[in-house]
């Protein structure tokens, strides 16, 4: 539980401006995701917030205290946990790694009990005696999370914690982070280039582009009406360029490859459209509904996302669809299966 006030934060490395004039404010127990492509300044922002680096200008207040004041720095940093994208382990046992933050804080009581509970929380019970540098990538990320959680930080920073991880490890980390946010009211700042991840958890979203704030605000609002930048920088979102032609109260958008979609937004000329993969329904037979966009296609890719499954369906254009695992199993579909996609005209967002 801690609030953040960040005012005109700027970081330069020589001539390169890694982060330019970022202002945002977070309340206690907020969940902010920082979204942006590689090189957008996500890591720089998190390193500044963890007080690992000093900003070139601007200020960071944590619960109203100036974080750049040398007298506050160590104390405030000890309230913050961070999980880096690439975490290194001390060359010793897992338990010595996890207990390390408590030891340097001079804590002495029930250390082994706390270590066991922290490891249990991240699903690594019994890993105490393993050598930390022999762990797999997913295990290292989870031990790092245990290291951060063991001292009950008020703020948890996560820098693309699930990049390069398999779906199982990703979903373990995601569920712990959500739990910590909801149950322990820890303020979370998570950077990701995975928009779906941002959409699932965040109460607030900050979109960075080349070190600048491209958008910042309430998550639900931002995802219901995304900016074209948000829509285009990832391919997951069924983003297409096309030509729109108004017909009655709809637009017909020609996406090329003989695929046209109906949108309830009336526009004319060159447009960028996208369709949220969750708004597309998947059936084995065509749906009888003239109001909807309906396409026939075959499955070309299946990705296990843990509780959900993401499918690529080739209908002339490739569409990304996400369904629950139960539905996926019930439908008994596989690669090359023929399926029908349908989505409302209102699901086609046009910019």
């Amino acid at each position, binding site marked *: 539980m801690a609030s953040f006030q960040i005012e005109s934060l700027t970081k330069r490395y020589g001539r390169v401006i890694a982060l330019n004039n970022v202002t945002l404010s977070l309340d206690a127990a907020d969940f902010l995701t920082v979204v942006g492509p590689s090189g957008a300044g996500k890591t720089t922002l998190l*390193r500044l917030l*963890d007080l*690992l680096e000093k900003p070139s200008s601007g200020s960071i207040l944590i619960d109203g205290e100036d974080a750049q004041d040398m007298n506050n720095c*160590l104390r405030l*940093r*000890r309230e*913050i*946990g*961070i999980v*880096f994208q*690439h*975490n*290194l382990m*001390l*060359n*010793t*046992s897992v338990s010595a790694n996890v207990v*390390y*933050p408590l030891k*340097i*804080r001079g804590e002495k009581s029930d250390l082994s009990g706390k270590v066991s509970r922290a490891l249990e929380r991240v699903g690594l019970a019994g890993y105490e005696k393993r*050598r930390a540098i022999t762990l797999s990538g997913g295990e290292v990320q989870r031990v*790092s999370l245990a*290291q*951060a959680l063991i*001292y009950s930080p008020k703020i948890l920073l996560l820098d693309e914690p699930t990049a390069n991880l398999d779906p199982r490890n990703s979903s373990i980390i995601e569920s712990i982070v959500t739990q910590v946010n909801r149950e322990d009211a820890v303020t979370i700042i998570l950077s990701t280039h995975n928009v779906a991840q941002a959409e699932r958890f965040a109460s607030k979203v900050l979109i960075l582009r080349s070190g600048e704030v491209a958008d910042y605000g309430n998550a639900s609002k931002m995802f219901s009406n995304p900016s074209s930048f948000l829509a285009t920088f990832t391919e997951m979102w069924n983003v297409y360029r096309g030509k729109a032609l108004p017909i009655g109260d709809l637009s017909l958008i020609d996406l090329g490859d003989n695929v046209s979609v109906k949108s309830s937004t009336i526009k004319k000329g060159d447009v960028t459209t996208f369709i949220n993969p969750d708004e597309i329904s998947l059936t084995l037979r065509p749906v009888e509904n003239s109001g909807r966009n309906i396409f026939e296609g075959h499955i070309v890719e299946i990705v296990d996302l843990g509780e959900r499954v993401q499918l690529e369906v080739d209908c002339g254009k490739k569409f990304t669809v996400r369904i629950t695992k139960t539905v996926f199993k019930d439908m008994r579909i596989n690669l090359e299966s023929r399926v029908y996609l349908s989505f409302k005209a209102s699901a086609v967002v046009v910019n």
Partner: protein
Amino acid sequence: MDQILEGLVQAFWLLVTLNHELYLILFLTLRVSGIAVALGTIVGIPIGASVALRDFMGKKLFISIVNTMMGVPPVVVGLVVYLFLSASGPLGILRLLYTPTAMIIAQVIIAAPIVIGVTVSAVGSVENGIRDKVISLGATKTQLTLTILQEARVGLVTAVILAFGATLSEVGAVIIVGGDIRWVTRVLTTAIVYETELGNFSFALALGAILLLIAFVINWVLTRMQWSGLRR
């Protein structure tokens, strides 16, 4: 060939019969090199660590000087220490020339650069990610330094091994500042020189074999420490 065999037999015989002079020489050798390496380590590790962990003007120059000193011929060190300690030298008043203390001083000057140089490279090769991690977990500057040293522990033991090797085997410095005085400043290496000059080749060889043996025992102990450090 016969001489080598004879030397080995004599070495064995000297050791088992507890030859008084041999053991005196042996203990003085261990005392001089042991104290020199201990002092070199006490001075060298903190200097090496702070050089590796800090950025300052002339850092590269400093490291180059240290690296040069790592290879400096012991006779040159002996000569300089001799000039400082001789009756007309600036420290002549201390009357240290031809004492074990003078030998220790010379060997510290040989050992310290080795410890500093290897420490700089061992600490410098601990990845920056470890530093970030330790700081982010809330370590103070002292805690950070101690943790980094612990991460570099294998390299630090290497530094001690190399310093021991250099001091045990060198003859140039100890012979100049110690004078190879029988019962007082004679160590294994200077004794080998002396016996060779007298033509007692098998006795010289016996001393050489004993020198190798203690070098092996020390290295064996340190290497075991190093590997247990790796496994920790």
